[in-house]
């Protein structure tokens, strides 16, 4: 279990704490799944090799979060919970953390359940994405599946006689063909954009926050399903 922010064991050194916490898991090892993790290997995996002898309180935010992940997996869990692991990270730390999650998912036989507000992150990391709104699951599928479903409605922007227009349509090709047939040369600045997962999510959140969550969730459901 890796929560958003841990502050414990500040006086302990990185390696010392991992060795200590690993001891509790030793009796749970099985021939197929040796427990705990080899500590030095683990420290390398989470990229804290240079900091193994440092006090935990002296780690930076990103290092501390990787330390927490190391603690979370020292017992080689079959299921790992990560609660918004990259909240408050700079882009560099976020990228490093994403690499770490990929490595864990690839190397170990571990299921990772990660909560995030960053759809980009979800798209990058997850095999399966669930979107929750108002306590209900309103979307469920792989990143590909979700964005394919989501792209049923695209946004068409153009300008005519110096005026800008926006239109959403399920069949943009047909719409644009019609547009040209009607106005021909008068159309300029044409732009067709499939709605991304994030766009749909954003509009849902906006609706949700303006207090029309019930309707928004239903609409979203219609779009997705």
């Amino acid at each position, binding site marked *: *279990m890796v*929560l958003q922010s*841990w*502050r*414990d*064991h*500040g*006086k*302990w050194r990185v390696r*010392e704490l991992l060795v*200590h*916490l690993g*001891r*509790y*898991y*030793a*009796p*749970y090892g099985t021939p197929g799944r040796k427990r705990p993790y080899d500590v030095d290997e683990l420290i390398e995996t989470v990229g804290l090799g240079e900091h193994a002898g440092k006090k935990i309180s002296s780690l930076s935010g990103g290092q501390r979060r990787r330390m927490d992940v190391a*603690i979370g997996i020292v*017992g080689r869990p079959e299921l790992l919970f990560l609660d918004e692991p990259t909240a408050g990270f700079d882009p560099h730390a976020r990228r490093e953390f994403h690499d770490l999650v990929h490595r864990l998912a690839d190397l170990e036989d571990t299921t990772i359940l990660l909560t995030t507000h960053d759809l980009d992150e979800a798209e990058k990391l997850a095999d399966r994405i669930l979107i929750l709104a108002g306590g209900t699951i309103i979307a469920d599928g792989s990143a590909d599946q979700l964005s394919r479903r989501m792209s049923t409605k695209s946004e068409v922007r153009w300008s005519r006689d110096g005026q800008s227009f926006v239109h959403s349509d399920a069949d943009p090709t047909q719409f644009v063909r019609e547009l040209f047939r009607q106005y021909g040369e008068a159309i300029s600045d044409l732009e067709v954009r499939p709605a991304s997962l994030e766009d749909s999510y954003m509009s849902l959140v906006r609706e949700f926050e303006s207090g029309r969550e019930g309707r928004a969730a239903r609409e979203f459901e219609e779009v997705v399903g």
Partner: protein
Amino acid sequence: MNPSMAAVGAGIRRGGIELRQTLTNAQDMWNYVFLPTVLLVVMYFLRGHKVPGTDFSLGAMSIPSVIGMQVAFGGLVILATVLIIEREDGTLLRAKATPNGMLGYLVGKVLTVSGMSLVSLAIVLVPGAFLFEGMRLDSLASWSTLAWVLLLGLVATIPVGAVIGSLLPGPRSLGFAMVPTMGLVATSGIFYPITGFPVWLQWIAQVFPIYWLSLGMRSALLPGSMAAAEIGVPGATWKPSESLDSGP
């Protein structure tokens, strides 16, 4: 290996690691040394004063009393403080999220607090032995009494400290707990024989462990004649059971 045994083993190591951490931390060391130093200086100036009814130095009487007080403090206040801080910063939550982590945590904490008590005992006793005359440090009986009073004191105070630590809502409320504790120290006969206080105050002091721990330490380290300054019949000897029975 059995999971509980693994946790106890981890807890023992945990105690050792935490003890090393506190002994290599400048601020912690300052906390260990500061109060005993102040007390030793004060007691040194009091060495000329005699305990009423005897010709024994008030300063030398205070040494074992202060040791008893520190053992009580270690078990009650320090443990409660540590528990509150570690509940706030997530150390306890971490222990709960680890298989048998709470068992290991408790074993570690008991060892850490016991070790800290031993250290603060030595910080008072070693200089005290050089500065003051009259303490019985050469007999085996003194040391064995010291050992069992220390052990009993830890066994008695650590659970109470753990309860206080888990009941207080946060670090700020520790101040409220400290004020009555200081009051108790003042009335428990640490710096002045308790028989010099009003009887009702003696009764209050006897309800709490600070009195009993300092009494036990005095019985270990002071000569038998000093029992006369304790609650009980004048001329009594060091027998906690007699002190228990007779009362003021």
